[in-house]
C-alpha cells in the first residue's frame, strides 16, 4: 500500500510540473501585462516599460520561467506584484479559508447525498423517492451563484438569521462559533449541486447492488433488513461512490470560485480570479499549484479508501 501511495505521489510530479508550464504559457499568451493593469489609463509605453523593468518582467519568458522554477525549488514562491506580499503567505492564508469552506461543504454533501440516495433506492418509486429525485434534480439544475444570492436575500437581508458575507464578524467575534455562523450559507450553497450528484449516483449504485445474488443470500440467511442495507449493500455500493466523492471534492474546490465571490469568502478561488485579471503571474502560479496538488491528493485519498473497501482491487 505504501509503495502504491509513493508511486502515485511520484506520478503527480510531472503532472504538476506540466501544469506550471501550461499556466505560464497561458498567462503569457493572454493580452495585457501587470504593468498595464497597475497603471490603467496612465499606461504609456514609457511608463509600462519602466514599471516592467522594476518588476523584473523585462526578461524573456523562458528566463522568467527558469528563475521562477529555481526559486520554487528553494521554497520561494516569489512576491505578488499586486498585493505586495510574498505569494506563499497569501496562498496559504487563502487556501486554508477555502479548505474550511470546501471541507464543510464536502462533508455536508456526502452525508446528505448518501442519505438521500440510500433512502431513494431502498424505497424505489415510493413517495419519498419521487420527492427526493425531484429535489435532487432541482438542486443539480440551479446555478449555485444565483442560489447564493437568493439565500443572502432571504436569510441575511430579510430575516437577518445569518451574516451576508465574510468569514468572521467584522467587530468582535473571531471564535469557532462565529466561523460556523458565517459558514452556514456559503457551505450549504456550495454543497447543493454535489449533493445532487452524489444522491443520484448512490441511488443507482444501491439499486444495482440490491439486485445482486449476495444480497438475496444475506436475506435468505436471515440478516435483518437494516443489516442487509447498511452492512452488505451500502458497503458494496460505496466502492463505486467513493471515487465520485473524490471527483466532487475537486468540483467543490472549483465551484468555490463563484461562491467565494458571492459570499466574500476570503478563499483561493476569489484570489485566483482577481490575480488573473490583474495579470499577477506569480500569484496565479502559486495558487494553481497548491490547488492542483490538493486535487491530486484528494483523488489519491479516494483511491486509497476505495482500495481498502474493495479487496478485489488490492
Amino acid at each position, binding site marked *: 500500500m505504501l509503495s502504491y501511495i509513493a508511486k502515485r505521489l511520484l506520478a503527480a510530479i510531472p503532472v504538476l510540473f506540466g501544469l506550471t508550464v501550461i499556466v505560464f504559457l497561458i498567462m503569457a499568451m493572454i493580452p495585457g501585462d501587470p504593468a498595464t493593469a497597475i497603471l490603467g*489609463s496612465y499606461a504609456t509605453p514609457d511608463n509600462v516599460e519602466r514599471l516592467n523593468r522594476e518588476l523584473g518582467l523585462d526578461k524573456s519568458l523562458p528566463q522568467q520561467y527558469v528563475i521562477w522554477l529555481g526559486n520554487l525549488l528553494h521554497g520561494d514562491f516569489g512576491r505578488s506584484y499586486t498585493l505586495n506580499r510574498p505569494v506563499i503567505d497569501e496562498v496559504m492564508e487563502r487556501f486554508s479559508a477555502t479548505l474550511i469552506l470546501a471541507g464543510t461543504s464536502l462533508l455536508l454533501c456526502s452525508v446528505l447525498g448518501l442519505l438521500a440516495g440510500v433512502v431513494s433506492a431502498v424505497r424505489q418509486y415510493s413517495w419519498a423517492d419521487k420527492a427526493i429525485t425531484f429535489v435532487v434534480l432541482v438542486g443539480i439544475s440551479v446555478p449555485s451563484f444565483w442560489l447564493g444570492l437568493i439565500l443572502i436575500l432571504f436569510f441575511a*437581508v430579510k430575516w437577518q438569521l445569518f451574516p451576508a*458575507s465574510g468569514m468572521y464578524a467584522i467587530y468582535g*467575534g473571531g471564535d469557532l462559533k462565529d466561523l460556523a455562523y458565517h459558514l452556514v450559507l456559503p457551505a450549504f450553497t456550495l454543497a447543493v449541486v454535489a449533493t445532487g450528484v452524489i444522491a443520484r449516483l448512490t441511488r443507482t449504485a444501491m439499486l444495482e447492488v440490491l439486485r445482486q445474488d449476495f444480497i438475496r443470500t444475506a436475506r435468505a440467511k436471515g440478516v435483518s433488513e437494516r443489516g442487509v442495507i447498511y452492512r452488505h449493500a451500502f458497503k458494496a455500493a460505496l466502492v463505486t461512490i467513493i471515487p465520485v466523492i473524490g471527483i466532487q471534492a475537486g468540483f467543490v474546490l472549483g465551484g468555490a470560485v463563484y461562491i467565494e*465571490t458571492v459570499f466574500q469568502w476570503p478563499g483561493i478561488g476569489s484570489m485566483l480570479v482577481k490575480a488573473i*485579471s490583474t495579470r499577477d503571474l506569480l500569484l496565479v502560479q502559486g495558487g494553481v499549484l497548491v490547488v492542483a496538488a490538493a486535487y491530486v491528493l484528494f483523488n489519491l485519498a479516494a483511491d486509497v479508501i476505495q482500495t481498502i473497501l474493495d479487496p478485489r482491487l488490492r
Partner: protein
Amino acid sequence: MKQFLAAAFASLALAFASPVFAQTPPNVLIVGQIAEPKSLDPHAVTAVNDFRILVNVYDGLVRYKDGTLEVEPSLATDWTISDDGKTYTFKLREGVTFHDGTPFDAEAVKFNFDRMLKEDHPFHDTGPFPLAFFFSAVEEVNAIDATTVEFKLKEPYAPFLSNLAYPTGLIVSPAAVEKDGKDFGRHPVGTGAFKFVEWEANSRVVVEKNPDYWDGAPPLEAVIYRPITDANTRIAEMLSGGLDVMVEVPPDSLKQFRDDAAFTVYEQAGPHLWFLILNTKEGPFAKKEIRQAANYAIDKKALVDNILQGTAEVAAGPTPPAFAWAYNESLEPYPYDPEKAKQLLADAGYDGSPLTFYVTEGGSGMLDPVAMGTAIQADLEAVGMKVNIETYEWNTFLGKVNPGLEGRADMAEMAWMTNDPDTLPFLTLRSEALPDSGGFNSGYYSNPKVDELLEKARSSTDQNERAGLYKQMQEIVKEDAPWVFVANWKQNAVTTASVENFKLQPSFFLMLQDVAKPQ
C-alpha cells in the same frame, strides 16, 4: 427533505443566537470598499479605492480645500514660487510628528521624493512607484533648514501644486520605511488624523483616532475598511447592518436606498469624463463634420438618464465642470439632433462605410461600458452610420487603444479621472502626445492653437491666466470634436442615518476627519 432542511436551518439559527447583527459601537465607522487595498504606501498605488484609506492616514504638503479642487496649506503652511516658475519653496508646519513619534521636517520631505524619483536612493527598491512621473518635472529637493524645503523643477510646471495634493504626494515616515522596507505598505505610518492599527488580509483594515492630530482630533474612535468586491453582496451587507458607509452604489440600487429613511444617499460630481475617442487620422472621422455629426447623433441625455440612471451628467466639452476655476461655463453640450447629424453627414459626403468601435467590458471609471456602447451603436445607426462593435476585457482593451487606433478602429470608449485640468488635455489632445511619443492621443487629434494654449497654461503659475487659457482650449476642442463628449460621473455613497457630517469630495477622496457616528 425540505422540511428537514428548514428544521436544520431553524435550529442552527437558534443555536447561534449571537449578536452578529447588533449595531457596531458608537463612533466606530465601518466602510464597505470595492476591493482589498493593494498597498498602504501612498507612492506605490494608483487606485481610488486605496486612496480612500490613505488620505485619512497621511497628509501632504498641500491638500484640496473642502468641496473644491483648489489647493490649500496642509503640512506646508505657505509657499513661494520663483518668477521663472521653476523653484517652489515651502515653509513646513512646526511640531508635527509621525504616528511613530519621529518628527516631520524638511529632511523627511526630501526622503519621500528622493525615494520615489532617484533610482540610486537606498530605498528606491521599496517601490515600484507607478505614478512617480507626476513629479517627473522635479530636478531636486533640498532641505534648506528644518522647516524649509525647496523643490527645483526642470521646467515650469503648473500642475505641480495639485499633484502634491494627490495621494502620490502624501508624506510617509522615513523611519518606518527604513524599518519595514518592502513591507512598509503593510505597516503604514503617516501624520494623518487616523493611525494604522491592523490589516487583516482579505478581511479588514483598521485605523484609530490620532488624538494629537495637528488639525484637531477626529470625532471617530476608529474606522474599519472592509473589502467586498461583489456589488450585490455589498448592498446586502449594507441592508443587513454590516456596514455604516458604502461607496460606489450601482445605479439600480440607489432608488432603494433613497426611499428608505434608515439610509442617506450622497452624490458628488467629480473630475471624470467619459468620452469616445474618434480616429481623426483616417476613415470617416478624419472629417470634422462627421465627427460633429456623431456628437449630434448620440442621445447623451438618454444614456445618462436610462443607462446610468442619473448617476452622471451630460458632458459639454473636454474639461469636467468639477474643475470649477478652469471650466468654461458658457459651453453647451452638443444637443441631440439626429436631423442635423444626417444633414452634416450628407454635406460631408459620408459614403456609409462601416465603423469599427472598441468597447470594453468594464474598467476603472468606465461605468456601464457595454450597455453604453450598444446604445451609442443604435443612435449612430439611426442616422445611417453602420457600427461594428468589438468588445475586449479591460487590460486587453487598453493594450489596443493606448498604442493608437490607426489601421484598427474608428472609435473607442474611454474614461479619465484626473486631479488637474492640465492632465487630460495635455496627455491626450496635443500633437506631441501621440502614442509613439509616449502620449495618449490615440485619435491623432492635432490643432496648433490647442498645443500653444496647453503649453502656455502649463508654464504659467497664475491661476487666472491658466483659467483663461483652458477656457479657450475647451471652445476650440468642442468645435473640432476629436471626441464625442458623453458624461461626467457623479460619485455616490450611502450611509446609515446615524452617520453625521459625511461629505463626498470632488477629488473622490473619502475624507473622514470630521465624520461622527454618535450612536
